């Protein structure tokens, strides 16, 4: 056992037992961040904050929500929204955060792609981030089921039907997942468990992995500049803060993070109080009715782009394209064959590739919500092909990229 002396203060007492000075040094005071980064690098903190909001509001909702097909809808819309003091606030906070978290995830992801932050030793940051994206998607989907509204019921029906794997007709698998022939009590129970326990646990673990993956390669910077972190850190510690290219995470970068978070919170709570409807589909305020299909079934906005890659194709090719869209982002570090980890604006063809991808994703998102008729389904089909095509050409356009 280590040698313990009589503590001189609470701080010293804790320090002897938990090494809080060392922890603080490693995690904040001497965790080095490049100086030349913009507010987009604060999106990680914004996401962590939003996840915290989701966790806390979720715990309050959990106190009153009832996972039963007969009472789930009323426990949300009557008990939480009317009977519980400020239940409406927690519910709107939770629902808005669930939607906004995806907006921030997409900004965070596209920032990574634009600045090449997935390359040269940063592959694990990218992969752990993509795993987080998948976990958040599962979390959002399972949570969407819980109020047992009309759209969540039918979205649950459509998504679980995908597991029949097209003409392979693995209907047994679909029933095994649902625990019934149609979404019912067993379905609600297991999605409730997934939403409040298993997936949040996985997310917490993945957040740890994602943060850990940053320690050795460090975060990228907006000029794609490579420098020696130890050398720059030595300058900083010697007091040459102005010359050093790095800053400490706390309080240097944290102060900027918090400013960005504060601006974000103004936007966030504006939505919560005066525009919560954008995050909540009106049809979901009708209780689930297994005998009445809504006229249009569509997922929440953040899944629309991948839904639209599934929809314009015939059954089997649609599933293949959908599967492609789900995994292809994971392979980005290897499909991009250029060694340049610099902003897209300095990378020639890749610059056009990036903006084509952004625009294509927006078109897919819009078409995924519109009814699949006439010109919309044609545009959707072209956009889906464009998505696949962009990934196919990526290795070729990056192979001969000039050294930036």
């Amino acid at each position: 056992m280590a040698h313990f002396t009589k503590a001189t203060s609470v701080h010293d007492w804790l320090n002897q037992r938990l090494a809080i000075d060392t922890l603080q040094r490693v995690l904040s005071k001497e965790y080095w961040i490049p100086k030349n980064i913009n507010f987009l690098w604060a999106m990680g903190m914004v996401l962590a904050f939003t996840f915290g909001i989701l966790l806390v509001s979720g715990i309050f909702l959990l106190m009153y929500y009832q996972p039963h097909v007969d009472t789930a809808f009323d426990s949300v819309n009557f008990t939480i929204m009317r009977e519980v003091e400020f239940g409406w606030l927690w519910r709107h906070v939770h629902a808005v955060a669930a939607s906004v978290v995806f907006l921030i995830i997409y900004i965070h992801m596209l920032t990574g792609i634009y600045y090449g932050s997935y390359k040269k030793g940063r592959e694990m940051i990218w992969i752990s981030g993509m795993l987080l994206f998948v976990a958040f998607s599962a979390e959002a989907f399972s949570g969407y089921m819980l109020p047992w509204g009309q759209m969540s019921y039918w979205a649950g029906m459509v998504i679980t039907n995908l597991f029949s794997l097209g003409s392979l007709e693995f209907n047994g698998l679909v029933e095994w997942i649902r625990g019934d022939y149609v979404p019912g009590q067993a379905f609600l129970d297991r999605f409730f468990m997934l939403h409040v326990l298993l997936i949040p646990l996985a997310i917490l673990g993945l957040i740890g992995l994602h943060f850990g993956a940053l320690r050795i390669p460090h975060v990228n910077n907006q000029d794609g500049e490579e420098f020696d972190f130890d050398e720059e850190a030595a300058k900083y510690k010697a007091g040459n803060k102005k010359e050093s290219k790095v800053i400490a995470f706390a309080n240097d970068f944290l102060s900027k993070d918090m400013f960005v978070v504060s601006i974000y919170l103004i936007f966030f709570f504006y939505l919560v109080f005066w525009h919560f409807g954008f995050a909540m589909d009106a049809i979901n305020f009708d209780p689930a009715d297994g005998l009445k299909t809504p006229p249009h079934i569509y997922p929440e906005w953040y899944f629309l782009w991948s839904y639209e890659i599934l929809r314009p194709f015939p059954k089997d090719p649609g599933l293949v394209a959908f599967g492609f869209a789900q995994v292809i982002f994971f392979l980005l570090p290897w499909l991009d064959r250029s060694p340049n980890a610099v902003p897209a604006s300095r990378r020639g063809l890749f610059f056009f590739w990036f903006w084509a991808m952004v625009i294509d994703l927006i078109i897919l998102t819009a078409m995924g919500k519109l009814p699949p008729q006439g010109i919309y389904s044609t545009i959707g089909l072209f956009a889906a092909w464009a998505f696949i095509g962009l990934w196919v050409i990526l290795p070729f356009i990056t192979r001969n990229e000039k050294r930036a």
Partner: protein
Amino acid sequence: MKEFKILAVVIFFTLVTYWLVEPFAHSQMHAHVESEGFSYDDLPPLEKTGDATRGQDLVMGAGGCIGCHSIEAAGFPAAMDAVTNSASYGVNPPDLSNAGGIYDAKFLAALIKNPTQALMVEHKFTPESGKMHPMIAFYGAGGDIDQEVADMVAYLQSIAPKPDQITPAQAFETACGRCHSVKYENWTQIGEKPVFKKKRDELVFLTQLEDYNANLMGYMGKLPPDLSMYIRSRGEHYLSTFIENPQNLLHGTAMPRVGVSKDGAEKVLEYLVEAGDPKHAERDSVGVKVMIFLLVFAAASYLWKKEIWKDLH
């Protein structure tokens, strides 16, 4: 400066995506229906000025209204209870005490002369279907029928409370509440559900409700939906135009045109807002306070950042 440019790009693409998946997509999925201003232009105008005293004689006598309707305000209670009434007519005929305050006068006159036309249910009660509308048209008491109808309307208006004295709950009950429940307000088709001391009494009430709803289902084709959350699932504009003319939004529906005046419709909507979104005032007041806090928080965090970064640049 560069950061503002980046922020502008992020905001631009966010707003474009938002516009596409919300306002634009919804405009493509749901045709916009304009309000008709509760003017009931398709109905014949009221040309005669009614006399309430003569109207009273007609309503109580030759008009035959109290054969089916109660008028509590004039001392005519219902002859049969709601369940028995629904067994005879499909639905409980409304008490006429406040009809004059809620319904449009032109609509009331047209209703007396030709119920299926006023209610816009001519597609349901056709000679081929063999179905008769439970309310029989008034064919006149021997004089000028338009004058007689105007007199009856004048009488109904004379006994009704002034429009501003009618509560949202009363307006809802008369106009909608005999077919629709609002369980979040404890409203059932046969009235407010009381608090029962004995389980037995509750079971009696529930049995009556079930019988009533079985009759109603037979009359309407299906049980009309509970309206507790309709303000959130349909929105005010949809509901207002739907109340005005259900056929415009749900062609062929069995729901009759209600015929409420503009005032009456506003009362009904007020009731539905309270049922489905009772915390709207609290939301606004808490929201303002949270915003003030966040602005102070943002200012403080900006000053903190400036203080720290003074040494870094």
